[in-house]
């Protein structure tokens, strides 16, 4: 949303649609539930560390689901963990977003066939906004996923959905 991203040099009144303003505020400070599952979590850590710097997109890790806007499912979701993930998701306040990171949480990944204890895709228990493919996805891929999510939020509307 062009206007709000610009620098304001004269005057400090901005006229914008509420929708745009809210969306802009939401997408620029997506607080992430600091929650790692498996190998992908290491790449997520690398993304938030010095080299890739997740912070510049406004993503700050929060330890509590009640303060988080976004949860990145980074790794294999097992059946034992699935119910816990669902509960974490339910504890998050609206609006909440989910990035599914890595093949495992997309579809079971390398464990799709013989993994008797692996949930074949986290979308079987909670809704997913953005899928990031890869095993593990590179940090750049995760960043791209986040930007995709931001684009999605930018076009959200407050109006009730018809249909």
């Amino acid at each position, binding site marked *: 949303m062009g206007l709000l991203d610009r620098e304001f040099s004269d005057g400090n009144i901005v006229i914008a649609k509420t929708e745009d303003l809210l969306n802009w505020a939401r997408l620029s400070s997506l607080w992430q539930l600091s929650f790692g599952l498996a190998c992908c979590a290491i790449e997520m850590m690398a993304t938030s560390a010095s080299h890739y710097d997740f912070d510049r997109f406004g993503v700050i890790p929060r330890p509590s689901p009640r303060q988080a806007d976004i949860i990145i499912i980074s790794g294999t979701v097992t059946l034992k963990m699935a119910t816990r993930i669902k509960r*974490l998701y339910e504890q998050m306040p609206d609006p909440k977003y989910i990035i599914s990171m890595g093949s495992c949480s997309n579809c079971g990944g390398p*464990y799709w066939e013989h993994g008797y204890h692996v949930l074949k895709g986290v979308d079987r228990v909670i809704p997913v906004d953005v899928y990031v493919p890869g095993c593990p996805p590179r940090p750049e891929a995760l960043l791209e996923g986040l930007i995709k999510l931001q684009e999605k939020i930018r076009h959200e509307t407050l109006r009730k959905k018809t249909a």
Partner: protein
Amino acid sequence: MDKLISNDVKTEELVLNMGPQHPSTHGVLRLVVELEGELIVNVKPYIGYLHRCFEKHCEAMTYPQVVPYTDRMDYLASMSNNLGYAIAVERLMGIEVPERVEYIRVIMAELQRIASHLVALGTYGVDIGAFTPFLYCFIAREKILNLFEMTCGARLLYNYIWVGGLSHDIHPDFVRLTKEFIEYFKPKIVELNELLSFNKIFIERTANVGILPLETAVNYGVTGPVLRASGLKWDLRKNDPYSIYHKFDFDIPVGDGRMGTVGDSWDRYFVRVREMEESLKIIEQAIDQIPDGDVKAAIPRRIKPPKGTIYSRTENPKGELGYFIISDGSVNPFRVKVRAPSFVNLAVIGEMSKGHLVADLIAILGSLDIVLGEIDR
């Protein structure tokens, strides 16, 4: 503990549940802590939240196909996992690999050890409340990952060390860049020491906390830096040599109780720091001697070990990684059991944390350096 709680006050034990989502459990670990006020009476770990059925997969895969799955156990030290598996199968089949392969394997495993320890040390700082060292550690780790990436194209899970050889030869620039890395990294260890190791607050939080007596450690089967911090010079690279480690000159750091008691959390931390120095020494010696040659041994296309069993172990960054393989003479392993170092090391936590404060539990857990992928497999 008795002194603190007088007998006529009615007290009740509190059961606190930590995890499976908790920022300092290093993954999906759940600890049920019984408390008497602030003091820990007992800690019971509940694991299995990341059980990915590794051993079942092995039975359905052929021997080479297992390698990518070994990557995913201790995902902070994939190279070392690959190495352990490759060595186990090679021993079972009686294969000798070319000299060049051995050298490259050792270099990779030691680089991996540094990378793994960097994560351990960095996140340990975060657990204690020092965030900055984490960022510094990850800068250095990123450089190692770049070296791995130019070798095999992956940043985290390499699938590089194969049965009978390597998946690719090293990049022509690898030797030069590794040397550059060694020069770059040496002062970084000093920096890390100044930043964290000898920091007063850090010492206060970790020295004399979570003391693990040697006898307990041995009885629990604890290995790796955790065992060495308790004062035993036990390193499979020296005590049960594999690959070509006997050719190199390096020390085995042990805990000496410099800041408190032998076997406390600070010792465990510092053993890792010193191991990084030793790993650098090994790489320095190896990097100049890599012989020319092939990176694949002459092995049959279909890997079919003879009937038999083998238990083969290597020194992972976390401790003794054992592969127990039963072969029934077919192309699939009949049974692969992994003796994961973190699995064994975690079991001792209840013993270590008795009588400590809740806040110390985090310090103790961090000092064990566990990886859930390997505990649950």
